[in-house]
């Protein structure tokens, strides 16, 4: 039984629900059960029901799937596009991709990493969003740091734009792209497109490095706080190449324990079911994956930036590797586990992706014309995996003799992080809320922990109009005692 997952006598406790009101039912919501002395007995994060995904895909011809899956998520459609097409390469019987085709896919993927991380970076750059805490000295320090990086917001937006241009040049469109097809790519890169990106990439690298330095400077303002906010020990998982370096696009699965020891390494992701198991819980639509050999109780893990940069033995680009080492030094030889390190790791990854893009643009292969692999024997089942911006993304398909998908299983990054996010908010609730009168400022601590993971709470949806956070306090009989509605779009 996980600590604070299930209260012993929930009927006697008050319930607080933190509920972002969005248009689709079942979105993210946090519930806390507290007794009359404000001691916390239960904390749960309920996340989107992803149940409709598989049904949406099953019955479609396999060659349509890499395009169709982009409609699953408006945040990282390229991630779904590439994970699906990697599986369909195998289903269709294609062998290894030509160098140009694989490098174009990588360019598209790195563009996705940059644009996605840049959005987070932009929000991160706003001190009120990152740490809207109630500590005035903390706030002053943060504002001071922000003043040292006056162009940070503009740079974040332009980084995002650059990443999207990389996607557009490789996918053909900024959204609904069709660049990757089973067996390769249907669009090459022109010299003009390559030159346009090459003209800007050094500036992007410089800005990404500056963003990493800004987070490092924020950390120095209050290191104890940053080190331990939302801290909990967990295993971690990510893709690595044959040499153990981080690989966003392809590699074997590696999992490390909280002390840095290896749980498994270089596992062929096509056999992921041998090392991972998904578990359902009665109170959540979303499954809880765990490492099979460790069991559900201790086998859960983190994915995403903080896991990836620590699971990997190294990063292959020089500036990002220097910054990775600086961050990891704070763990004193063990992985760092504070939730706010996710922000730092995310920006190191943005820097890494920018450097990788530069290297690809300087590679003559990127302008090659050989875009399709040779075709061999068709398969009826395959798995495609990539490292999406928020973490490891699995696409598993079976097709019948009519080329229609008969089985589809997706494990998205947010599902992989399900237990870890619950642990993060339990850690925060225990440290900051337990035994205290709950205020909006304290509840904001919960939000900060969730934001560090940036979970996909609203795949392919959005909300026009106000997007408030509702906090309901309900007594033991279920009667609403108090409702605070916080408009998140506060006027200046």
């Amino acid at each position: 039984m996980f600590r604070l997952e299930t209260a012993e006598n929930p009927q006697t406790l008050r319930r607080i629900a933190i509920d972002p009101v969005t248009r689709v039912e079942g979105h993210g919501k946090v519930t806390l059960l507290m007794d009359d002395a404000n001691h916390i007995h239960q904390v749960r994060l309920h996340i989107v029901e992803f149940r409709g995904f598989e049904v949406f895909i099953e019955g479609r011809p396999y060659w349509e799937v890499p395009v169709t899956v982009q409609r699953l998520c408006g945040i990282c459609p390229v991630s779904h596009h590439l994970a699906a097409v990697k599986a369909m390469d195998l289903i269709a019987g294609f062998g290894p991709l030509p160098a140009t085709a694989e490098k174009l896919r990588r360019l598209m993927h790195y563009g996705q990493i940059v644009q996605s991380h840049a959005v987070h970076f932009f929000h991160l750059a706003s001190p009120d969003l990152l740490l809207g805490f109630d500590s005035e000295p903390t706030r002053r320090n943060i504002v001071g740091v922000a003043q040292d990086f006056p162009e940070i917001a503009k740079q974040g937006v332009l980084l995002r734009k650059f990443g999207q241009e990389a996607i557009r040049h490789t996918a053909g469109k900024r959204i609904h792209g069709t660049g990757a097809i089973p067996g390769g790519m249907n669009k090459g890169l022109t010299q003009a497109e390559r030159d346009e990106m090459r003209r800007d990439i050094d500036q992007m690298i410089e800005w990404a490095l500056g963003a990493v330095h800004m987070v490092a400077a924020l950390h120095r303002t209050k290191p104890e706080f940053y080190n331990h906010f939302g801290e909990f020990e967990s295993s971690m998982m990510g893709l690595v190449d044959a040499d153990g370096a981080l690989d966003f696009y392809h590699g074997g699965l590696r999992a490390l324990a909280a002390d840095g020891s290896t749980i498994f390494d270089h596992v062929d992701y096509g056999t992921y079911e041998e090392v991972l198991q998904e578990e359902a819980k009665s109170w959540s639509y979303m499954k809880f994956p765990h490492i099979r050999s460790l069991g559900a109780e201790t086998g859960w893990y983190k994915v995403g930036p903080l896991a990836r940069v620590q699971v990997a033995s190294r990063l292959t680009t020089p500036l990002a590797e220097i910054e990775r080492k600086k961050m990891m030094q704070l763990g004193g030889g063990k992985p760092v586990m504070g939730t706010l390190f996710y922000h730092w790791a995310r920006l190191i990854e943005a820097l890494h992706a920018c450097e990788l893009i530069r290297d690809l643009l300087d590679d003559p292969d990127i302008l090659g014309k050989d875009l399709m692999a040779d075709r061999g024997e068709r398969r009826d089942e395959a798995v495609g995996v990539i490292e999406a911006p928020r973490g490891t993304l699995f696409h598993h398909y079976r097709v019948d003799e009519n080329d229609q998908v008969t089985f589809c299983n997706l494990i998205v990054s947010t599902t992989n992080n399900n237990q870890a996010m619950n642990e993060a908010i339990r850690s925060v609730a225990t440290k900051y809320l337990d035994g205290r009168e709950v205020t909006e400022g304290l509840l904001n601590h919960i939000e900060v922990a969730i934001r560090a993971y940036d979970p996909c709470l609203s795949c392919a949806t959005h909300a026009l109009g106000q997007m408030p956070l509702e906090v309901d306090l309900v007594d033991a009989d279920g009667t609403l005692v108090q409702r605070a509605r916080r408009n998140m779009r506060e006027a200046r």
Partner: protein
Amino acid sequence: MSAAGESRSGATAPAPGETGEPFPADRPRVVVFGWGNVSRGDDGLGPLLLARIEALAHPHVAAIEDFQLQLEHALDLRGADLALFVDASVAAPAPFAFFETQAREGMTHTSHAMAPEAVLDVFVRVIGETPPPAFVLGLRGETFDLGTGLGEAAAAHLDAAFAFVAPLLERPDAALWRAAAARLSSQPI
């Protein structure tokens, strides 16, 4: 593709007033954003209305589609004289709401999507200028399930909204648009 700027499909890059095909000089330039997911029921109202607007082929109108509003859409506003944000809404009265809006700092619990006001705020912070007058057209939607099409009521809302907005796009004048909003008496949603 109706003018400079990105097409509905996002297939071209230059923002209005930046590079590429210029807007004609004789009429104010309008950027229309329509966002949503046509595979999620009434969530497709924004892109579907945008498609109808694009079919009008007004050279002074740039139509931009996306899954959701994000930071970079602030850059698409450069050089525009008017902005129109079109989306499905659960809060709008049927068949639609239409009102003027302004830049407002956007605090959200997620980085996944932005409100029109937050995009305008990004324009202020990044471009350093006053954004163009901006209006929101929110079409009432009811169901947003994955794999479903537009509902019957939403289809009627789409027709009504297009009939309302088409004449406005013919006459891209902020004063006229304000008068239209006043006649409708929509409350911000």
